[in-house]
């Protein structure tokens, strides 16, 4: 049959990585960067990219060792059945809580800016249903959607940046290289959070078998686009508001985009309209996360498949979202994850790859599992 095998091409891989990081990052990234590095907050972006590279290399090395296994299956092989499963469950629960916090944050954003009177649970339900629908269709559909949406989204985003440039004041961005790292409060390692979603790639490594050689190149391409985007985003936000004012804003990027005004165009508040378009990337990131977590769960528990797990997890996430819907609480949780999440997202693959090297574990080259 002339059917596509479940594998993703290089462009699909790139668009998936880019859009997932983008969707997760644009909401909160500015706060962390400004808090940690003040007026030089934009420099946190390439720094975060650099710090993410070891984790990605670890995932890549694991992929080469275990071409047919994803991170969950790899941990079962490396750590043994019981320990591997236990640690995997903890890893997945961490990702699940991270996703819950993030999805609640987005729902609060929509509740604040767009739909004030609509009950919060309706917004959560709508959001989660579409994300679950996407996640349940599998990696091919998720990557195709990402590929379809990435170019128009990137155009809208870069257009918005061009429009906010006139309001940017260079003095607010100076002095460059005046590093005053702030490790208290929200600051410190929270700057790494932009590239956490790249770690989700560890779940789809078996589908990247055919493009192993191209992955480093595609990852670098994703990095360059993301770095340029977040750099512009930070420059825009800090250049417009100054690094001290940003900490008072719950969604600095949104507020930055809202300053965009194009006189006499059909849509007023063009910035807000652009933000609404960006919400599409948020749903795609959510869909991909749900898919990854459900896939992991099904592999750990050895039950059913990811499609069923998506529909099992969705109501659980929904109920948790409703109960966590306090803006201050959600923000503090997301700060916590941003600051310490790297230990799990990057630490886990690094640990696994070291253990795989020590115990000389390797996967089968033929498709076995």
């Amino acid at each position, binding site marked *: 049959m002339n059917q596509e095998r479940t594998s993703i091409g290089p462009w699909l891989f790139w668009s998936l990585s880019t859009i997932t990081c983008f969707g997760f990052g644009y909401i909160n990234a500015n706060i962390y960067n400004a808090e940690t590095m003040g*007026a030089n907050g934009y420099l946190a972006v390439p720094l975060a990219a650099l710090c993410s590279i070891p984790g990605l290399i670890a995932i890549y090395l694991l992929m080469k060792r275990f071409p047919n296994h994803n991170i969950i299956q790899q941990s079962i092989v490396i750590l043994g059945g019981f320990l591997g499963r236990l640690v995997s469950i903890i890893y997945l629960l961490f990702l699940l809580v991270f996703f819950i916090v993030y999805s609640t944050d987005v729902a609060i954003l929509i509740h*604040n*800016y*767009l*739909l*004030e*009177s*609509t*009950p919060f649970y*309706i917004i959560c339900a*709508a959001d989660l*249903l579409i994300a679950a629908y996407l996640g349940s269709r599998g990696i091919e559909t998720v990557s195709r959607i990402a590929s379809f949406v990435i170019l128009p989204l990137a155009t809208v985003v870069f257009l918005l940046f061009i429009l906010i440039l006139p309001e940017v*004041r260079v*003095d*607010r*961005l*100076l*002095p460059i290289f*005046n590093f005053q790292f702030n490790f208290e409060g929200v600051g410190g390692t929270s700057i790494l959070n932009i590239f956490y979603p790249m770690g989700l790639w560890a779940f789809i490594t078996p589908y990247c078998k055919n493009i192993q050689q191209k992955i480093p190149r595609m990852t670098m391409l994703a990095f360059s686009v993301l770095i340029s985007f977040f750099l512009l985003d930070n420059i825009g936000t800090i250049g*417009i*508001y*100054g690094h*001290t*004012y940003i900490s*008072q804003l719950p969604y600095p990027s949104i*507020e930055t985009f*809202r*300053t965009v*005004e194009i*006189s*006499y165009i059909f849509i*007023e*508040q063009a910035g807000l309209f652009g933000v609404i378009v960006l919400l599409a990337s948020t749903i795609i990131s959510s869909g991909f996360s749900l898919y990854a977590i459900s896939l992991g769960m099904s592999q750990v528990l050895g039950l059913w498949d990811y499609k069923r797990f998506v529909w099992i997890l969705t109501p659980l996430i929904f109920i948790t979202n409703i109960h966590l819907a306090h803006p201050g609480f959600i923000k503090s949780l997301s700060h916590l994850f941003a600051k310490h999440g790297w230990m799990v997202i990057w630490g886990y693959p690094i640990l696994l790859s070291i253990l795989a090297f020590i115990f000389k574990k390797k996967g089968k080259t033929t498709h076995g599992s």
Partner: protein
Amino acid sequence: MVHKLWLFLALIFCLSGCWDQEEVSKRALVLAMGLDQAAEGKIKVSLQIPIVEELLIVPSGAAVSAKPFALVSAEGSSAFATVPGLNAKTQTSLFFGQIQTVFINTELARKGLTGPTDFLRRHPTVPPQAFLLLTERPAHEMLEVRLISKRIPSYSTVTFFHSNNKKDQVFPQRIWEFNRNIRSQTQDAFIPLIEYDTKEETFIIKGLGVFDGDRLAGILSGEETRMVGLLTGKTRNAYLSIPTERFGRITFRKVTAAPRTKIEHNGHQLLFRFHVNAQGFLVESTRGITRFTPEDLEWIQTKTALYLNREIKKAVQRLQALNSDILALGEKYRAHYPRKWDPANWKLLYSEAKIEVSVKFTVTRSGTML
């Protein structure tokens, strides 16, 4: 089974209440807002709401009502606390998403605007690009004036600010900029001062209100505002008129400037160096002189540069006297001297700083005459 579940979920959404739905015709669109100081420390909020049926263009050209908008006011202990009172006076619910301008009375501005303007940055539908205007008259009076040009006062101010050729004495300050500036330690806010001419039934831009923190510190005159515009580079089309003995009164139009500002710290005092490269089109010589020689032009340019030098210095000194840093010199100081930057003593340094101005003026064109 799965399909039935989808249908069930779809039906739930269809049966939902469309909570946020409120048609634009069923909302009271607030086009302008006025903030005044009322008695006993209260704040009076006035809203200008158009009567939409009166605004429809009638094809037959029938006479339209002279006053197609309504004004509602209420007093309260804070700005947004008046909203229940205002809602009680309107048939439909108030909608702030189309606010064009907010008029603020100078008396209220002198007391501090952190409180009265806080809701403007918190309310998600208030457009951050709405303009702020100061008025010495009560703001609610400004909302009900008649204009010969436009039927809705607030809307006419918007067209005013959108016109490029009007950026001479007035520089718009939008809500988001204002809210950032009054809370910033490195920059102060300003709001254009607007007045109403009862005889000619039109608005007049009178000057620029400058703030120290969140309090109105003083009003710059038109000429001072023009100089500030040249210093900040915001001017798009300034007019300049200079008396000369040789050529009568020389007037320039489309005066723009490319300023460069430097701050130097010599240990205990700051020095502000302003270098302004200005240019303009020569449009009038009251003696009707034409055929300007290069020496003539050089002379005119030098004279104008001297004039500008003097006026710019006066304007900056005025700002220092009012302790208002609308030129964002604090930001520059922080950027170039990050280790010496201390928000606590910035204003002191600012008010005692020395000023050096150097201006270079170029006559770019002399119109359709030589």
